[in-house]
């Protein structure tokens, strides 16, 4: 699609610096939204921020002026509760003006508690209940196979979310059909709403599970932008399998008192905590 911006080749120092800047911007704005609304899921916003920034500022091709261009790369935020991060990211990518971020969770806002494709450009499917994004991503990838479109499809799930069986139905289809232009990214922060994943319904060895389902698996530091860029930016034509990126992350990444602390799944900051976080997010 000529209207779509091709992603910049991976690996340049300037690109990595830009992505880091955008990730910081996403974290600061997501947290401000959560603070103002006194609602949200900031821990998961922070674990996903570097992944989102890498996709939108280093990997994906899209045009915010033509949000449903047929040849666009698709991103699905299957962990739909982390709206602070995805809204801040879409705003940074040019889908809507920055002033609108202040409406987060307000009555009748487009920036709802969970993303709605009919409210906001850049959202591909309405998520919120877990285990929904991956099957939809599989369908988008099959459509690419059937129509000969070269778009890529990226789905970001939480790790606790993988306890939903629908993901494994989708994984079977993706592996069976060798959907090489499909990438599943797992935000592996090891915390779900109530406790550690491994204390709740253990997922390890997660890489073996996806390999067994027919995926090429990469396990990387989900906050290492260089690694994210290299793995996510690699040409999928070189693969005959779908890609699963297990991004090892830290819930609450970037703010000392939030990191790896389950209470920040949907905890919201008081003024002192907000001020402290803003000092650290620089």
């Amino acid at each position: 699609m000529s209207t779509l911006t091709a992603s910049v080749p991976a690996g340049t120092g300037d690109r990595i610096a830009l992505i880091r800047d955008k990730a910081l911007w996403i974290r600061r704005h997501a947290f401000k939204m959560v603070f103002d609304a006194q609602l949200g899921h900031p821990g998961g916003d922070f674990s996903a921020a570097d992944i989102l920034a890498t996709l939108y500022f280093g990997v994906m091709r899209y045009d915010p002026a033509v949000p449903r261009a047929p040849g666009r790369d698709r991103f699905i935020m299957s962990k739909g509760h982390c709206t602070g991060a995805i809204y801040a990211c879409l705003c940074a990518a040019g889908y809507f003006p920055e002033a609108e971020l202040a409406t987060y969770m307000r009555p009748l806002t487009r920036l709802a508690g969970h993303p709605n494709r009919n409210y906001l450009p850049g959202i591909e499917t309405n998520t919120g209940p877990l285990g929904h994004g991956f099957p939809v991503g599989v369908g988008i990838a099959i459509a690419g196979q059937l129509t000969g479109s070269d778009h890529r499809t990226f789905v970001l799930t939480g790790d606790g979310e993988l306890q939903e069986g629908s993901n494994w139905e989708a994984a079977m289809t993706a592996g069976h059909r060798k959907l090489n232009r499909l990438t599943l990214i797992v935000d592996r922060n090891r915390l779900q709403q109530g406790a550690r994943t491994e204390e709740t319904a253990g997922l390890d060895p997660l890489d073996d599970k996806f390999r067994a389902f027919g995926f090429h698996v990469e396990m990387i530091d989900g906050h290492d932008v260089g690694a994210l860029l290299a793995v996510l930016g690699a040409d999928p034509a070189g693969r005959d399998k779908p890609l699963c990126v297990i991004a090892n992350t830290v819930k609450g990444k970037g703010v000392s008192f939030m990191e790896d602390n389950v209470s920040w799944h949907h905890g919201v900051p008081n003024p002192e905590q907000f001020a402290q976080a803003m000092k650290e997010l620089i």
Partner: protein
Amino acid sequence: MSAAPSTAAGRFDCRDAFARTLEELAEADSRIVTVVNDSVGSSKLGAFKKRWPDRTVNVGIAEQNMVGVGAGLANGGLVPFVSAAACFLTGRALEQIKADIAYSNVNVKLCGQSPGIGYGELGPTHHSIEDLAWLRLFRELKVIVPADPWETAEAMRWAAAHDGPVFIRVSRFPVPALDRAQPTFAPGKAEMLRSGEDVAILANGVMVHLALAAADQLAAEGVAARVVNMSWMNPLDQDAILAAAATGAVVTVEEASVRGGLGGAVAEVLALNRPVPMEILGFPDFCPTGSVKFLFDRYGLSADGIAAAARKAIGRKVRS
């Protein structure tokens, strides 16, 4: 286009009309694909698959994934017809239908095969008597319950042309082709098949021809029964319901639960606008073991049963 008889003389399995019409549509529009849960045979899609193997997306026995994949195919510019036994399509994947299809408002056609008690002796796990109550709640999702092969084919053609989500029931219970003077498919409209001012019988799906037979019985007794084909559950034709209420007594008949389906929908309209005596025919609970015919008869889903319900409703009219 009429379907060839596949059962007893003069009776038709609506799946034949479904499959043939889908082929006709797919021939004209390369965007049309099917999505199935190992349900090629039960959906009578063998010929479709043979002709278009690539356009037959079989995800295996995985209904949540099937519906999500349908939403994704629509996102990618295709027009998916997701076809599976109604019980599994709507029961197993209800949250996907809610979030991925209706709330997301995407161009996916859901085809509920062998709905109601079509699987007879296989029992309530395989019956789909809940689907109408569940799915009529979603305003975005158009819900159509065709009465015969002609209406099944027309509903399919309309669904393919409509940009948005649709649910169509595709019955396997053999029904006669309804005798229509001027067949016209009017989206969102009920179809008055027989006029009458003593009582109105509102039916959908395979119950419609039984309602007509009941009206014949009643006519022999001097009772003029209106028969209305309420194939559209969503949107609901409120005008037709209110016009039916002018007879002073209403009977609803559906191959579904007596709670929340056509009877519930009509009761809502009447209670809010024009209360009249009403009888609701359908299934009161999970069904015991029995053939389709046995269960229909047991719960009054027969010409005799419908006529009896009509007499009862007439008897409850307020005398002035």
